[in-house]
């Protein structure tokens, strides 16, 4: 499993979210999931990717509290350390 450095996590999460629909330039740390048209089904898929990459298991309640791309990156980095 790759090391969950903040840079690696950010890069992988941005790549994953961009593959769901939004342009990669839109996927910044401050962008909200609402702005990016990322819904709960997308976030479950993001959680699967995160678990595959770093073994971090995110539950439904964890996902609900996420509002921005930065929130997701910070949560994964914190859980992985």
């Amino acid at each position: 499993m790759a090391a969950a450095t903040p840079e690696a996590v950010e890069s992988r999460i941005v790549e994953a979210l961009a593959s769901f629909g939004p342009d990669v330039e839109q996927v910044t740390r401050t962008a909200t999931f609402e702005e990016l048209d990322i819904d709960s089904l997308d976030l479950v898929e993001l959680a699967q990717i995160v678990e595959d990459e770093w073994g971090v298991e995110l539950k439904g309640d964890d996902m609900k509290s996420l509002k921005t791309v930065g929130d997701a990156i910070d949560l994964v980095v914190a859980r992985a350390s």
Partner: protein
Amino acid sequence: MKRRVVITGVGAVTPLGVGAEPLLRRWAAGEVGISDGEGACREFIAKEHLSVKEARRNDRFAQLAMVASDEALAQAGWNGEKPYETERIGCVYATGIGGLESLEGQHDNLRDKGDKAVSPLSVPLFMVNAGTAALSMRHGLRGPTFQVGSACASGGHAIGTAMRMIQMGDADAIVTGGAEATLTPLARASFQAASAMSPTGISRPFDARRDGFVMGEGAGVLVLEDAEKAEARGANILGEIKGYATTSDAYHITATLPEGTYASKAMDLALREAGLLPEQIDYINAHGTSTELNDAAETTAIKLTFGETAKDVPISSLKSSIGHLLGAAGAVEAIATLGALNARIVPPTLGLEQPDPALDLDYVPGSSRSLTPKNGTPKALSNSFGFGGHNVVLCLEGSA
């Protein structure tokens, strides 16, 4: 009095290209959209028509439906605001099988990587009503919306049901039709195992050498409206659905009843609703699958309904050009039939070179003919039959 139901827009994605226009033009010109034994929509590139998100969230069958619906609604003049309250616009849409490609892919994930690898999008991708839901959401259709399934009769059933619901006042307009995209390993193996699919990969309905259907994929969408309301808004009316009837063989899960009794009954009833005699029909768009049983039983059924005049009515099968689109077949065939009536042509049954002595009607072999309506407007029957013994017949009238 029942309301009349007219067609104001059509759209298609088929092995003959993206659009209803190339479907008729290329079929009438004798082009075959089948290669390597399958009728794939090779000219359809999802990203040319759909966003990344739309493509990712929809199985191929729903993608085909969405693109066909954009064409149909544009032709109906529904580009901007809808002409009716959205709760008065429905969507009755067909598929025979559903998102099989997605289902097979997710099953691979489950088997190879475990249940955590199954996508949260799985059910919305493969559920049979995914196409209907996609059209309802894409176009904001908030009236009655549901999926119709009767195997290869599904498309015909969707159109007939939609027509009936407008007649009875359940909706003022309904987006209808059918889509299918099952060119997958499981579907191929299943139809081969049932001995339904052509081992030679050639679709030649009514030919002595016919040996099964060729599987195709595609989508057709029709916009149906209450005639008075469509006329009042100045819509361009392409034609009218004059009659619809459906019966069942109650005989065998895959084989058609050889005597054609109930397929014929459906033709009788559709003609009766249209107020037409068999001899007033200018053209029959046959189910014509290229299977031994269907083409013989359908011929028998046409003879039962048309009697002495059966030999006088031209009959052809679109499946000779694009293969069998399963749950989309009835929809795409209705669109091609309407187009043929309005272009005043009878498109051919392609590949019919060695007549079967037992099948002695006029199947329009080889090339198109011109069509001269017998009584003012041109009129046709379009037949669809499905595994399970479902029979559907639509009676269509083109414009004057």
